[in-house]
């Protein structure tokens, strides 16, 4: 296309008073109109409104524009709005440029003249940039709606139940011979904030009965390759051939382990004291009741919090509640039992939990805040030694001490992470994409992590996360619908590639790979999210970011910093 066939239209939005009051739009229109290659410059009160959108659409069509520049608000607000209007009006949406003159000019600069000058230079830069744009086409990809869930604990089951339908098969791979994971072991005492045992059992039964959930017991996932919409999975089954599955998405729900308190001598493991973990109490309660080594029922117990807290370096958050639950259990069975709760911190994550502490205090449970605690003793007595809040060293003699070990990453975490190229956080759990805005997502699109695999949490949170992951998959992986991968991806100019593989080391999404035979790198467009890491790091300039080419950026910057005179 030669330059004189360009018909560039510039539309300036007043954004009500937002832009109109802070910028001399008349001067902008007057100055920009003189700029070469600009066909029309128009202003509108509110381009994002219904009438505004209609005006833009009709005007682009009537004027027969080839390129559109809109000077308005942040691209976060309306870049897509106006791109869609361009598309509807027959202009490729990548031959359009949105310029943010609201947040970056009108709202920033008090002096109206200075703000106006900045708007003019921004629009000039945008116009220069758009001249170097190329039409880009949205590609479509076939996908499979089926999902692989790794781990048959409560998070895995919940994901599977939410996802499975007649149009979507779920493959649930469990390394043990039963479903339910840790939550499935709870029967005697249920930690507060958990589902009742009956609900867990019914969820397991539902998963087993669901014809669209295929459970592989005693099986492990050997490899997962591919990308969102198209993963290929190999599952190793006992006494059977490996099975190859095609899925569109993967949910990791590989759970957790508990800190081994015998790794330190602080908790009396190794001495002859009566010390049990919360899980041991659970198991004993399930099989007839809690008794001491000599077969008698304890008359006094100490609940010792934070076993392994210092060793692992973080608070697991849910263990406090499990100890309080145990206090409730003993008080309901033996109202006269003496209970000491010895804690450094008490994690209360809901108003109900605060209330529960008050109730337990009324029932005679003694809560003591301590700074240092250890357990010693012999078969006849168990001694809890601690330093109280005043710095005094004290001891309590009890029949039984119960400790709540920290939640630590599941043993399979490194292997699963390596298989999928997921990152692991400082503590060894899977790392979420973003703590707040993507707590169940990973750096690999289409791969989700739920439950304790991503960090300590209660059953309710695990279930909620499983539902969130399922919801995300349901909304994006619709049976029969094609996927629309990112358009503004990177591409390798093979003739310039030296094969140094720097791009492979810097890609966060695993989109770049090295072709050993042709000795060049390549970008998988289905995985690439257009972040530009590879582009910036390629010393040879052999990778181009579509829509952010060096030429486009160079010309845009050059125009932005040029003098205010019309440079052409």
């Amino acid at each position, binding site marked *: 296309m030669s330059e004189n066939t360009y018909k560039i239209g510039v539309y300036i939005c007043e954004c009500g008073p937002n832009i109109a009051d802070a910028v001399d739009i008349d001067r902008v229109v007057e100055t920009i109109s003189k700029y070469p290659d600009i066909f029309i410059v128009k202003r509108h009160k509110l381009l994002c409104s219904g009438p505004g959108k209609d005006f833009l659409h009709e005007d682009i069509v009537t004027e027969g524009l080839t390129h559109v520049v809109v000077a308005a608000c942040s691209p976060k607000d309306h870049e897509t709005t106006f791109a869609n209007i361009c598309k509807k009006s027959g202009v490729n949406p990548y031959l359009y440029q949105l310029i943010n003159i609201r947040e970056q000019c009108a709202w920033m600069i008090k002096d109206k003249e200075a703000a106006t000058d900045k708007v003019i230079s921004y629009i000039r830069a945008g116009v220069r940039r758009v001249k170097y744009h190329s039409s880009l086409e949205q590609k479509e990809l076939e996908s499979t709606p089926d999902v692989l869930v790794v781990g048959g604990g409560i998070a895995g089951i919940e994901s599977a139940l939410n996802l499975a339908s007649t149009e979507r098969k779920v493959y649930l791979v469990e390394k043990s011979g039963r479903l339910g994971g840790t939550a499935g072991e709870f029967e005697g005492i249920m930690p507060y904030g958990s589902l009742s045992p009956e609900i867990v059992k019914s969820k397991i039964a539902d998963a087993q009965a669901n014809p669209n959930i295929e459970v592989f017991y005693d099986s492990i996932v050997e490899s997962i390759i591919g990308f969102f919409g198209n993963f290929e999975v190999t599952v190793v089954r006992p006494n059977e051939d490996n099975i190859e599955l095609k899925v569109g998405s993967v949910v990791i729900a590989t759970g957790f382990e508990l800190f081994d308190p015998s790794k330190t001598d602080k908790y009396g493991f190794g001495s002859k004291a009566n010390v049990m973990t919360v899980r041991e109490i659970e198991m004993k309660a399930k099989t007839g009741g809690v008794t001491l080594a000599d077969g008698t029922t304890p008359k006094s117990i100490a609940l010792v919090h934070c076993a392994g807290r210092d060793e692992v370096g973080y608070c697991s958050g849910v263990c406090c509640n499990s100890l309080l639950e145990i206090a409730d259990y003993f008080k309901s069975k033996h109202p006269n039992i003496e209970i000491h709760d010895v804690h450094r911190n008490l994690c209360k994550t809901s108003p109900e939990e605060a209330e529960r502490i008050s109730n337990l205090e009324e029932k005679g449970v003694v809560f003591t805040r301590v700074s240092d605690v250890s357990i010693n003793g012999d078969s006849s007595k168990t001694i809890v030694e601690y330093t109280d809040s005043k710095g005094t060293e004290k001891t309590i003699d009890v029949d039984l001490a119960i400790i709540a070990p920290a939640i630590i990453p599941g043993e399979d975490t490194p292997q699963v992470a390596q298989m999928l190229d997921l990152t692991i956080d400082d503590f060894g759990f899977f790392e979420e994409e973003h703590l707040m805005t993507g707590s169940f997502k990973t750096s690999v699109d289409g791969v989700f992590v739920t439950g304790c695999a991503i960090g300590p949490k209660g059953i309710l949170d695990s279930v909620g996360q499983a539902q969130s992951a399922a919801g995300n998959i349901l909304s994006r992986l619709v049976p029969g619908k094609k996927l629309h991968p990112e358009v503004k991806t990177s591409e390798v100019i093979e003739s310039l590639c030296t*094969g140094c593989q720097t791009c492979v080391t810097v890609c966060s999404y695993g989109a770049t790979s090295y072709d050993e035979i042709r000795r060049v790198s390549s970008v998988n467009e289905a995985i690439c999210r257009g972040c530009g890491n590879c582009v910036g790091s390629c010393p040879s300039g052999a990778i181009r970011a579509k829509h952010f080419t060096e030429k486009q950026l160079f010309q845009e910057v*050059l125009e932005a910093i*040029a003098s205010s005179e019309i440079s052409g």
Partner: protein
Amino acid sequence: MEKNMKAKTVTPSKGALIPASNGLNPAVLEVLKKGIESGFFSAVLLPVKVPSDDSYAWVLTSQDSLLEKANVLPPVMTVQGGKALSSLTKHGASKMKIAAVMRPCEIRAAIELAKLKQIDLENVLLISMDCPGALPIQNYVDNPIEGEKNFSDAVQNDDVEPMRPTCKTCTHFSITSPDLHIATMGVTGDSILLVPSSAKGHSFLDEVGVNVETDASSWSSEIEKLTEARKSSKQKAVAEIKEQTSGFANFAEVLSKCISCHNCMSVCPVCYCRRCYFESDVSELSTEQYMARSAQKGSIRLSQDVLLFHLGRMSHMTMSCVSCGSCEDACPVDIPIAQIFSAVGDDSQSLFEYIPGMSPDDPLPLRIFSKDKELCDIERICADPLKGCDSK
């Protein structure tokens, strides 16, 4: 951008003493011939005198007639050895074993290129020697006979004065990370000491039947002494070049005579792009734009991008620059470009405690990233304020 903690190679304590009554070159060639005869390697890559007798070229050969003309330590560095080895193994490892005899800075360039996948070191036995420096190439080609004499006199008298500026201040002139190193400095009695520093090096010496049993301490202490002396002369030289180029005006002045021939880029062993950004059309402007810029600034220099070219190359090369001096040797207008790059390279490399080419196992600093440490180190921001991190 993690710091490399183990950049320093450990100096081996023992070597094999080989008689060298006729000098270094015949003794080393003798050993290389044994290597070929025994089949340990099939060919040797080394500098061979060109037929016109006025320069050296890298030759891969096993022929005696060519080995006769070889000089393992020629007076000049023509093509940087790392570049020669790269052109040989860029497209994959050699299936046959070869030996490459190169100066320490050439070995270091080769190691950097291996990290950048531009050299495959599999089946390559790297042999280096204590390097007395190299003469400026222009001085040599003007009068090769005198050049040979000047070089051998300088080596005899431990005189670095006639050598190139970067050689005079070189602090990595001895063992770096080859498989085998030829020690000469501090080795007395018409001998050389073959010091193996890898399993490959050891098995080669086994193959050619020499015993590694001579104490190498007189050599290593001589190297240590010389290195200290070089460090102080380097410090002085760096201060001078920084003074000369400090500030935009001075820097621009030093580079103002650049004729944009890009020789420095072409001869640089680690400048490995297929096509330089500055030889692409990305930063070219339209005639109108040049006119407008000239009007705006009062004047513009054409062709453009002299400063940007050097700064761009500097930013690309600074982590891997081995201060080999090739760029300065190739500069037709005598810009002290190697001295500038070396001074800047030292600074940026020391930020990451990285010495390019010292160990094949040290990753390129800009390819690795440690969130906690680096945010603290570089940005002075703690990635996890609650937990804190080592450097606080």
